[in-house]
């Protein structure tokens, strides 16, 4: 079940509402379990591609499926709502809920059929794994950059996602903290590999976490490579 591959084919043209730039997005790629890096300059359409996968933006044409489970198909009109996709999306801004404690943030994504005390227990357990259990009852306003990152990642892992999307969540961190965190994340991902996309424009980040890399420029995929081929050298 967790070994399904995510296949993405989306076309999205300029003048679509909410589109800030006149970007034509036209991409197709596969994301097997493990980390695939989506690499390219800002404005290349990386975040927009993630938004399509999460269901936040509806492409004009294309098909998005996880194994046999179709999330979007412009031919059949199928469209699975955001909240039914179980996609963990770690935003660049992290999007921690400011009016909730760290534990409440993490518990938010745990399915409702789990009773609240159990949700809290799972949340604190995940915060412990991310080494921020001491923040459980504090609100995000008081967190440092690295701490906020860890809570956001704990929230993503705790929801037991089927797909994980990381939209440059490490870009604001200093190098030392970043390396340590990237190592922990890759360990956690290796426990239970699911299709994971890391968006970045920093080669060292890509090399540390990624197994494959998809290069994207001006809304088009220019190259796909395995990290063992040393695509950045």
């Amino acid at each position, binding site marked *: 079940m967790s070994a399904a591959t995510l296949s993405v084919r989306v076309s999205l043209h300029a003048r679509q509402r909410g589109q800030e730039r006149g970007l034509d997005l036209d991409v197709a790629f596969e994301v097997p379990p493990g980390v695939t890096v989506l690499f390219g300059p800002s404005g290349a359409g990386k975040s927009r591609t993630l938004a399509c996968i999460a269901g936040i933006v509806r492409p004009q044409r294309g098909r998005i499926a996880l194994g046999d489970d179709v999330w979007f198909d412009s031919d059949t009109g199928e469209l699975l709502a955001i*909240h039914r996709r179980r996609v*963990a*999306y770690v935003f660049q801004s992290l*999007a921690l*809920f400011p*009016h909730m404690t760290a534990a409440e943030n993490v518990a938010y994504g745990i399915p409702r059929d789990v009773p609240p005390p159990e949700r809290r227990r799972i949340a604190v357990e995940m915060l412990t794994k991310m080494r921020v259990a001491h923040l459980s009852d504090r609100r995000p306003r008081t967190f440092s950059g690295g701490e906020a990152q860890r809570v956001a990642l704990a*929230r993503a892992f705790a929801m037991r996602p089927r797909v994980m999307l990381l939209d440059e969540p490490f870009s604001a961190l200093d190098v030392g903290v970043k390396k340590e965190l990237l190592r922990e994340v890759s360990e956690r991902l290796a426990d239970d590999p699911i299709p994971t996309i890391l968006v970045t424009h920093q080669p060292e980040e890509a090399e540390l976490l990624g197994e494959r890399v998809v290069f994207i420029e001006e809304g088009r995929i220019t190259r796909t490579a395995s990290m063992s081929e040393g695509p950045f050298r």
Partner: protein
Amino acid sequence: MDHTGCSSPPSTFMRPEAFGVRCPHSRYESLTSSMELGPLLLSFEIAATATVLAAVIGITVAAVLANLRFPGRDLVDVLFTAPIVMPPTVLGYYVLVALGRRSVLGQAFEWLTGTSIVFTKVGAVVAAVIGAMPLVVKSVRTALEETDPTLVLAARTLGAPPLRAFFTIQLPLAYRGIAAALMLAFARSLGDFGVTLMVAGNIPGETQTAALAIYDAIQAHREDDARLMIAVLTGLVVVLLYVVGKLTARERSP
């Protein structure tokens, strides 16, 4: 005391008879200053009820306008904002037509509750709701639109259906703006004059709110009788607006 009719001058621009209310005698009530408390308490009762109603309807409308795109959205916005600039007499006319004793709604309400909407306390509440509604819709909509949309999207990706994301994320994050809106609504409800006079009349003990009682007292050169009401209304509005200012100022700073 005369509870049956609509007494005080000037009643030339308000003829309840035309809407099915009978005035056995149009006699001017003489009020002693100890009776200022009655209209004030009535004003508070009506304003509190109106605020609750305006909150329920207004927050719902604001949420729809802030989050959904549909044909006619701008028209709904205009409809709920219009009372700010519409003459009270025009609004009052519409209410009398829509909810008067000859209207379908008016008759249905009377059949259900045994009391008519117009020229009763219910009418005064309706009048106050109409005055307060635009303030609630406008302020709550702004507060909802100022919340970070990424947070709502994050909630959705974490498995929350749209309504849960609204009630657990967007609404609590907008609480300052909503609290400010409800205070404005209360202050506005407290002071309604025009629409109240049109649809509820000026019946002492029933629909004579402080705003109307003040008018009566001034007309009759009994300013002394209005002093307490004027002071209370002024003080309360100043305090409410001060708190509203505090709430919305802190909301804007990060």
